[in-house]
């Protein structure tokens, strides 16, 4: 971390990280029960029964990267656990304790990690729209851990979606980032100074870049640009 800080403060040239692996999920309009049936084998017996669709999807893509007790986890979701939030609100006046705890951000990523009993030193959960992808990426790139797992997504809501307070689309992503290049690396992220006009990289746009393995060279945050380069396989 000290080296990263010194390099940045002395030169403000570039931050670079290597993508070791990417997992994505885009189940379309798949029903939560169908998602559970499809993915339950990826979780310990009994854990899947209580998991939400967001928890199953995030837990699945993140679990594929096999988190360890040394990894930092960055999690980004615009709306968080929308279905659980809807259920909790519907439970009043007899508030549901289960839906309350499940609705609390960042339950979507905690469900899988708790199910697997995977402690992590740092978990940074982001929420909201705007610059969320850019700030979450910077949290990943500035993190001192040797390996950083950046995951996120959203789940399609029901009645909250109709009011613009839940996502239209269900999706999840997870990628592992390393400081050093390696023969197995599949891509590279570079953040550089930029004086162009900032245009927010939305979370869904970031997801599409990963899912389609599309390159990117554009604005990340005010004053910073992002280059995403995929290695030819």
């Amino acid at each position, binding site marked *: 971390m000290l080296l990263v800080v010194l390099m940045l403060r002395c030169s403000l040239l570039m931050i670079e990280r290597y993508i070791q692996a990417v997992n994505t999920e885009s189940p379309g309009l798949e029903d939560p029960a169908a998602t559970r049936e499809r993915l339950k084998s990826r979780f310990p017996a009994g854990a899947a029964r209580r998991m939400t669709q967001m928890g199953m999807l995030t837990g699945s893509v993140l679990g594929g990267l096999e988190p360890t007790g040394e990894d930092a986890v960055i999690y980004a979701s615009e709306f968080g656990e929308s279905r659980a939030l809807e259920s909790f609100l519907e439970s*009043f006046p007899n508030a549901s304790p289960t839906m309350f*705890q499940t609705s609390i951000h960042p339950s979507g990523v*905690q469900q899988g990690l708790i199910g*697997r*009993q995977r402690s992590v030193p740092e978990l940074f959960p982001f*929420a909201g729209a705007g610059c969320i992808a850019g700030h979450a990426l910077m949290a990943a790139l500035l993190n001192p851990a040797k390996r950083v797992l950046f995951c996120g997504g959203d789940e399609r809501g029901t009645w909250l979606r109709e009011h613009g307070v839940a996502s239209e689309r269900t999706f999840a992503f997870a990628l592992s980032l390393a400081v050093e290049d390696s023969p197995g690396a599949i891509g590279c992220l570079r953040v550089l100074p930029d004086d162009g006009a900032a245009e927010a990289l939305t979370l869904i746009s970031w997801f599409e870049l990963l899912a389609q393995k599309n390159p990117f060279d554009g604005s990340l945050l005010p004053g910073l640009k992002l280059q995403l380069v995929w290695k030819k396989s």
Partner: protein
Amino acid sequence: MPRLADPNPIKVADCGCITPFGGAGATLAALLRGERALQPVPVGGIAGGDLVPLALLPGRDIDETALPSWGPAMKRLLAKHIGPQWGTAKRPVFFTSSNFGVGHLHAYGRTRDEKHLTFGSPYGCVDWLRRELGWGENFAIFSHACVSAHLGLVHASRVVSAGLADEALVVTFDFISPFVSGGFHALKILNADFPAPYMNRATGSIGLGDGAAYAVLKRDGDGFKILGQNLHNEMYHFTANQPDGLGFTACLAPLMEKTKGLRLWVKGHGTGTLDAGRMESTRMAEIFPSSPLTGWKGSLGHTLGSCGLVELAIAIEAIRAGRTPGTVGSSAPAFTPNVALEPFSNREFNAVLCASNAFGGAHAALLLAHD
């Protein structure tokens, strides 16, 4: 008083909070007098229900209004930071909360007034607030239950330390609504009893409180030095800590080296629940046996995602005043002898450790120098 040697720590250049007692100064004074802001309030607000201990800002009703009832308090808190200087490339804002405007979704369910929906998502709520304050669009939102504010401080420190920002503003706010009081009541940890943090009694109980705070972090100039920060996430259970208490140790251990030679006092999490309170005070007593442990949620209630920064602002005010409040609401017997039940002079100390915990076994700690 020994000087603290650290090359270039991040500094808290400005800090403030608001609680039902007022700003940080008024809150400190009330805590030193042993006053309790918590009052019995129907858990469901206008819908009634059991009386539970809540600490609401004066004149603010638990049932949310549109425009938000907490808006004026946020404008008062941030009055000297209103304007376009924040939310820019070199002066980003990091918002943290565990509630945001979720009380408005509950209010929408009750009233069907669609004005509430504007504030119902984290982004909608924060974007409204930053526009009201005249800030730009370079802001991020963190939410990690009751360690949310600590995450904002850790990440803002990294951004400033890396030279990506000249200074950073961390803003946190949590205002109680029937959504959150109903949830904690359903979990059976918010009941009729007032909280008594770290007190060895038969039944545990928490209170909930309104709270908001901010901190400006810088590399250079005057300010309170952050000597270290650390995080740990047990991932053992959604609401309970792993029973051996090792999660507390895992968070504190990396800070041990930085505390060598320091005379510390500890501002703990101390909500009033029995198991977590016993584990916390026991681990603190093992690791920092000569450091008094105090907590203020017995008066202010648990300000949830904001507690880390609200209580840091009070701790800074206590350092300035030279006197630290005791664990208001508690009396002997405490779980461990390190628990400070009464106010004490902090002039013989040169650092404070501020710790918070959250659902999911999340732990956070911040070590702050007195000078």
